[in-house]
């Protein structure tokens, strides 16, 4: 059947599409032979290594070194941030020259934080940062891969540890991706030719750890030498080497998975969910290095090729080596006054600056003099794009809506299943940059989603803010009422200043303390609206209690006190509930966005402390005020709490003022101390935040 189709494909080239299992695909002109003319180039140590903190999908790593420090080879330079992240290690020994923003190999061309090393060319190795001796289970393998800083080296850059299953036996087949479907790129080909043994052994290690029964390696049939080398290495190890038809994008994870196993990974699911796991051969080789020699990922095979170079080659390049250095090694035909491309011509991107460094995902540096960009013609709905699409999308209709900025409609056409392989743009007779439309649409949709989430967040924060204002107002009123009641009572009882009953303010402080305790321990899930109601209810109760105490102050002080205490407790409980609700609301909002958790937590901590400090400060102020100008304060309060006064005349006589003044100094001192402590904590939080900012 295959031979018949192959013969037929001479007559009708597109018959080749029927040779494989997934739909679509294109046949660009392959120029892999360019970089396969020579064996691997000798490794070099450049004069400067630039190591971006983010070489992977997820959160950027957190630097552990300072400028001027001497580092040794393999030393960990940056630790992974919490969540999805990967560490960065020193590729060679040298001095940390700078930690600064440098242009990244990223399509945006924007600079980001990098650690710059000036190598001392001694290449002195330090201690290996990998603690796991030999991984035996998925967890230890995960640990090891994380410590080694290994990410998907086929170009995706997804931290590999995250792809592993949780339990042994969850994955039945381990797939190795050696398809390398991009025209021009040969780094995996070269790797398989020269280090087949390592790849096979690495695969066996992984399979043993995760309990996979089968290992299949998929290699395109345009790499006979790699196929032979891998077959030889796999002999007797139970590893199946499968030759797959040459078609772009055979190297796509879902495409190769379907080709090798016939299993279609459902949209939105991961390969692990259907019992499969796929790694690029380069990733597997790196994992082997980590498990066998405990080496972190510090270098990778890079193809340096293109029509603009005399001596295209493959080289095991240290991470951080500038593109220009490598391109210069390959003897450019003309001055490299055109943008270099990272990756292949189908999915790569132009880099903004030739000095950008090799990162963990750099599989190829392509120096192709740019072709003139054909102007885009209108879409003639020819449907070529649809037949080329390996995911069966309708690129032409998606383009139509993306062009009209109808993002919801594009999304409905399953935009997010697009793998951005570029087949549609490749075949478009109208030269429409379809992929860029989809990339733009994806970005816009993500932005819209983020904005919506932020709006929701802001709304909740505003509600919390209003609730807080309300609460503070009520508290203040309650405090004033209590104080007035105390004053009245004292006046009525004509007892000496230092009576057994604690002053109203002290009680308020006590209540606040209790509240703070409950804040930490209480548990509730009431909604924001409920909490506001509860706060109001409590406030009303408090006010009633205060009024009650005013009325009855002449006879039953004890009862009034108890009432007041109860009210205060109720208020405290309500407030605690409110705070809890607010917190849970905030937390529930950050669904899984773990990388944002720490700054937000810090912010919340700071906010809490701030609130405490504010309260303490206010109380201190009132204390001071009453100390200095007691009558004034009362006048003020009289103005503020006009209707609630219940006709009780402000009895601001000197003895009471003196009393409150006497009782305040020690507590004021304590409060000030608390405020200082809070300020210190806040400053720490601020520093933490700043550091976070500087890292990001």
């Amino acid at each position, binding site marked *: 059947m295959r031979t018949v189709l192959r013969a037929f494909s001479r007559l009708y080239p597109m018959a080749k599409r029927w040779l494989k299992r997934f739909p679509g695909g294109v046949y660009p002109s392959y120029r892999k032979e360019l970089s396969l003319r020579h064996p691997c180039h000798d490794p070099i140590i450049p004069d400067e290594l630039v190591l971006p903190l983010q070489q992977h999908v997820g959160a950027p790593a957190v630097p552990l070194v300072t400028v001027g420090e001497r580092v040794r080879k393999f030393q960990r330079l940056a630790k992974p941030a919490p969540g999805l992240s990967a560490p960065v290690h020193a590729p060679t020994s040298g001095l940390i020259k700078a930690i600064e923003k440098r242009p990244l190999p990223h399509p945006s061309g924007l600079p980001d934080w990098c650690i710059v090393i000036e190598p001392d060319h001694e290449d002195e190795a330090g201690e290996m940062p990998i603690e796991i001796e030999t991984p035996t289970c998925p967890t230890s393998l995960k640990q090891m891969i994380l410590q080694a800083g290994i990410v998907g080296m086929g170009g995706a850059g997804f931290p590999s540890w995250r792809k592993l299953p949780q339990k042994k036996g969850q994955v039945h087949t381990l797939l190795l991706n050696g398809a390398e479907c991009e025209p021009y790129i040969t780094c995996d080909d070269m790797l398989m030719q020269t280090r087949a043994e390592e790849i096979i052994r690495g695969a066996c290690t992984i399979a043993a750890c995760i309990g996979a029964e089968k290992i299949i390696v998929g290699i395109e049939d345009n790499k006979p030498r790699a196929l032979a080398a891998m077959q030889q290495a796999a002999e007797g190890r139970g590893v199946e080497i499968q030759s797959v038809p040459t078609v772009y994008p055979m190297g796509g994870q879902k495409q190769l998975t379907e080709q090798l196993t016939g299993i279609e990974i459902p949209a939105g699911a991961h390969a692990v969910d259907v019992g499969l796991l796929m790694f690029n051969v380069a990733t597997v080789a790196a994992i082997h290095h980590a498990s066998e020699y405990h080496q972190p990922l510090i270098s990778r095979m890079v193809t340096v090729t293109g029509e603009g170079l005399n001596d295209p080659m493959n080289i095991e390049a240290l991470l951080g080596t500038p593109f220009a250095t490598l391109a210069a090694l390959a003897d450019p035909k003309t001055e490299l006054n055109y943008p270099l491309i990272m990756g292949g011509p189908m999915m790569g991107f132009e880099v903004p600056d030739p000095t950008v460094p090799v990162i963990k995902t750099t599989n190829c540096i392509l120096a192709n003099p740019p072709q003139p960009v054909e102007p885009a013609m209108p879409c003639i709905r020819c449907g070529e794009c649809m037949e080329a699409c390996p995911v069966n999308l309708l690129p032409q209709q998606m383009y139509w809506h993306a062009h009209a900025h109808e993002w919801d409609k594009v999304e409905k056409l399953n935009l997010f299943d697009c793998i951005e392989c570029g087949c549609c743009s490749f075949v478009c007779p109208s030269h429409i940059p379809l992929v*860029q439309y989809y990339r733009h649409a994806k970005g816009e949709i993500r932005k819209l989603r983020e904005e919506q989430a932020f709006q929701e967040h802001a709304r909740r924060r*505003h509600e919390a803010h209003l609730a807080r204002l309300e609460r503070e107002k009520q508290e203040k009123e309650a405090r004033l009422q209590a104080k007035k009641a105390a004053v009245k009572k004292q006046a009525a009882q004509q007892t000496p200043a230092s009576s057994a009953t604690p002053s109203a303010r002290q009680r308020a402080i006590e209540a606040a303390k209790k509240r703070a305790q409950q804040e930490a321990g209480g548990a509730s899930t009431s909604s924001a609206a409920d909490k506001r109601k509860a706060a109001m209810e409590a406030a009303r109760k408090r006010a009633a209690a205060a009024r009650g105490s005013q009325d009855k102050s002449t006879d039953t002080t004890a009862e009034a006190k108890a009432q007041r205490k109860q009210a205060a407790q109720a208020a405290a409980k309500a407030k605690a509930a409110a705070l809890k609700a607010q917190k849970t609301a905030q937390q529930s909002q950050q669904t899984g966005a773990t990388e944002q958790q720490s700054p937000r937590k810090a912010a919340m901590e700071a906010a809490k402390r701030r609130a405490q400090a504010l309260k303490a*400060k206010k109380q201190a102020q009132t204390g001071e005020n009453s100390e200095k100008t007691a009558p004034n304060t009362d006048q003020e309060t009289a103005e503020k709490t006009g209707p609630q006064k219940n006709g009780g005349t402000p009895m601001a006589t000197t003895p009471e003022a003196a009393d409150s003044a006497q009782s305040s100094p020690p507590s004021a001192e304590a409060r000030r101390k608390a405020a200082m402590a809070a300020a210190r904590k806040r400053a720490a939080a601020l520093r933490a935040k700043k550091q976070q900012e500087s890292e990001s």
Partner: protein
Amino acid sequence: MISAVVIFIALAALFGLLLGYAAVRFRVEAPPVVEEIDKVLPQIQCGQCGYPGCKPYAEAVAHGEAINKCTPGGEAVMLKIAEILGVEPQPMAEGEEAEKSRMVAFIHEQDCIGCMHCIKACPVDAIVGTTKAVHTVIAQECTGCELCVPVCPTDCIEMQPLPETPRNWIWPDPEKVIPTVIPKLESPHP
């Protein structure tokens, strides 16, 4: 003649009953309009509409306030509200602003005297600080309402766009990059 009249009256009665029954049986509870409007408002809480926040404005709009007062939301939000309420769109008071990136407040700390004014003004509690200590803005929480800018006695608060990083960068619209003979959407057909 009479039979025709009778038939039509019977028919009218029948359909009337049917319609009446359907109206009761398949009654759709109208969604709470205030919530709907509040959802489309940008939640910046800037108060430029003359109300103390987005929710109060949503309530006011539901009770007949003009729908074109949300300046940050611009025409897009106005159109959405018009759709929710089923009313005619009203032109925005000022000229439509060009699309701009999200702005956040930034406090120049050397000038901050720790007066707490901005903290009180912030509708989402996004400013941290205490008396006589330098304040700062939690950029992730700032809605860019600019309410803190005028209250600062030392004019040390400045609105700055969120910095563009490789993480929040998105691919530009190809129509702005690649020469095309396809008419741009914005340009009217000549």
